[in-house]
C-alpha cells in the first residue's frame, strides 16, 4: 500500500532508489488544539451572540414582552370587569355618553391605572398605563407612562403619554401607521374612553409644548379632551420625538359592555 502511493507520486525521481518510509505508528489522527483556533472560535461565538442580541432587541423581544403586556392588561381588565358580571357586548355603533365622562384621580407614581387599546396595532393590543414617565420605574417595565403634569383621561385638556418605540415591549412601535379617524381607547375601572386619531407631529426632544392642555398653545384654556402619545423618532434614535394626537369622542361605561370594536383587545383573542 505504501509502495503504491510512492510510485504514483514519485514519478520525477527516476534514478533514485525507492526508499521505504518508516511505518506510521498509529492510524489515529492527532487532535491538536491551537490557541489561534480556539481564539477564532471564541470570536465567532461572540459574533453570533451579538447577532442574537440584535435579533432580540429589534424583533423577538418586543413580541415576547408585548404578548406578556397584553396578557397583563387583559387580566387587569378582567379584574375591573368582575364587578360587572355577564357584560353583553354593546351594539356596534353605540354612541356612548360623550357629555361628562368620569375622571379618576391620578394614582401614585409607577402605579398602573389604565390600559391603552388601539385596534390598528392589532386585535390583541392592550397595554398598561402607569403614572409617571421615569425610565427605570415605569417605561423600562413595559408600561406606557402618563406625564404627571398633564390631565387624566376624560378631563378637559391633554392626557399625554410616553412609551418605547422599540424594546421594552415596543408599545408605540406602529404609531406612524395610525390613520386619521382610527380609534384610540383608554380603559379604566369605569369603562372606555374613545379618542379619534387626528394627526402626527414631529418635534425636538425639548418640545414640551405638546404637553400643554391645548398642545403647542401657551396659556390657553382647554375646550377639548386630547390624548397625546409621544415616543422616539426615528427608530433606534433619540434625535426627535414623534407625537400622535387624538380627540375625545365618547365614553362607554363599563356596565354598558365592551365596545364591539375592541372585544378581542379587552377579552384576549384566545
Amino acid at each position, binding site marked *: 500500500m505504501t509502495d503504491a502511493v510512492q510510485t504514483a507520486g514519485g514519478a520525477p525521481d527516476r534514478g533514485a532508489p525507492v526508499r521505504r518510509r518508516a511505518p506510521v505508528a498509529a492510524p489515529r489522527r492527532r*487532535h491538536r*488544539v491551537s490557541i489561534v*483556533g*480556539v481564539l477564532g*472560535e*471564541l470570536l465567532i461565538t461572540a459574533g453570533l*451572540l451579538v447577532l*442574537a*442580541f440584535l435579533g*432580540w*432587541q429589534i424583533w*423577538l*423581544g418586543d413580541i*415576547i414582552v408585548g404578548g406578556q403586556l397584553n396578557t397583563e392588561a387583559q387580566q387587569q381588565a378582567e379584574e375591573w370587569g368582575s364587578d360587572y358580571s355577564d357584560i353583553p357586548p354593546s351594539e356596534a355603533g353605540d354612541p356612548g355618553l360623550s357629555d361628562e365622562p368620569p375622571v379618576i384621580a391620578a394614582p401614585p407614581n409607577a402605579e398602573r391605572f389604565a390600559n391603552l387599546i388601539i385596534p390598528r396595532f392589532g386585535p390583541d393590543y392592550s397595554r398598561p398605563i402607569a403614572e409617571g*414617565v421615569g*425610565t*427605570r420605574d415605569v*417605561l*423600562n417595565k413595559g408600561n406606557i*407612562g402618563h*406625564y404627571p403634569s398633564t390631565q387624566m383621561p376624560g378631563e378637559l385638556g391633554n392626557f399625554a403619554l*410616553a*412609551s*418605547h*418605540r*422599540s*424594546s*421594552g415591549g415596543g408599545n*408605540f412601535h406602529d404609531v406612524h401607521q395610525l390613520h386619521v379617524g382610527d380609534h384610540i381607547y383608554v380603559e379604566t375601572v369605569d369603562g372606555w374612553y374613545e379618542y379619534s386619531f387626528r394627526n402626527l407631529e414631529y*418635534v425636538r*426632544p*425639548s*418640545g*414640551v409644548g*405638546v*404637553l400643554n392642555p391645548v398642545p403647542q398653545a401657551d396659556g390657553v384654556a382647554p375646550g377639548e379632551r386630547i390624548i397625546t402619545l*409621544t*415616543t*422616539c423618532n426615528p427608530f*433606534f434614535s*433619540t434625535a426627535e*420625538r414623534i*407625537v400622535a394626537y387624538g380627540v375625545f369622542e365618547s365614553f362607554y361605561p363599563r356596565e354598558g359592555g365592551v365596545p364591539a370594536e375592541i372585544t378581542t383587545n379587552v377579552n384576549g383573542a384566545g
Partner: protein
Amino acid sequence: MYAALWRVLPGPWWVRLIILIVAVAALLTVLVFFVFPVVGDLIAPQEVTVTE
C-alpha cells in the same frame, strides 16, 4: 474547541447533535429571558419623553 466538544460528547452522531441542539436552545432561552433584558437596559438607553 468545538471539535473537542464534539469528541467528548457520547453516543453516535445524531445523539451528539440532539444534545447540542438542546444545549443551544437552553442557552438561547436563558439569554432571551434573563440576560438580554438586563443588557438591553444597560447599553441601549432610549429617551422617549419630551423634557425641558
